[in-house]
């Protein structure tokens, strides 16, 4: 373990903005993309079940 305290960890030796800005953007992108795909799939399935209903 590299850190003496949690606040040390958060401050990242003065690079907090850059380090968390990088990891944060990656986390955001890689959570948003699967979420958007889930919504896309749900929309298709709703459309499909609507089709069945009409037949």
């Amino acid at each position, binding site marked *: *373990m590299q850190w003496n305290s949690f606040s040390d960890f958060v401050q990242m030796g003065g690079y907090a903005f850059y380090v968390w800005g990088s990891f944060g953007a990656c986390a955001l992108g890689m959570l948003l993309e699967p979420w958007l*795909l889930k919504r896309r799939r749900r929309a*298709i399935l709703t459309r499909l079940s609507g089709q069945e209903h009409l037949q």
Partner: protein
Amino acid sequence: MSHSLVNWFKYASPASFYPLAGRMIPYFAAAAALLGLAGLWIGLLVAPTDAQQGEGYRIIFVHVPASWMSMFVYCVMAFWSALGLAFKTRLSGMMTAALAPTGALFAFLSLWTGALWGKPMWGAWWVWDARLTSQLILFFLYLGFIALQSSIDDPRRADKAGALLALVGVINVPIIYFSVQWWNTLHQGASVSMTKAPSMAHTMLAGMLIMALAFWAYTIAVALARVRCIMLERELSSEWVKRNATE
């Protein structure tokens, strides 16, 4: 031999690839999550402070895997495009289209994290350096591919146009990769220096490779999920969709 050939053609059709892809997604998603946690653990908690760059160097644990994936995904798109143009398989175009947004995301993250690294280390968010410029072109190639495909209504024509763009654009990938050798760039050469104290370099390298594997598994899971959506959207009226969609 003939058995394996039959299987290849079997899975080249959307109707049989759709359920296979669905079964594979949970494994790749779980692998991505576990490897991602392990990579974060090593990269943020275990790996020692860099002698020159302090804690700021930790950005490389996401910057390098994102950059690698952005280049690799484009190569895979070019591979599927060549296959699609040669054999006219429907699945190839769908796979190419499914990969493009994820590749674009990684190209963007590569540029974003690179800017956040460049500001404290070089004193500039951006420089028109060969490595950075060719990576920016890669991002624009992804956006161009997505725009081109969405501007053509007929999926087969969209696939063909996209495949041509992917194949022409793939020339840019070796340019990115070798840019640090061919030109005198500000961007550093090797991502991990093996000349530093071995224990240090090994922890850093392990963290970076595990993160790269996590990004790899993530890409496969997300691309498979997207290709399933594309299959359903393109073949909404076909019989297999009605049978399989609820699975």
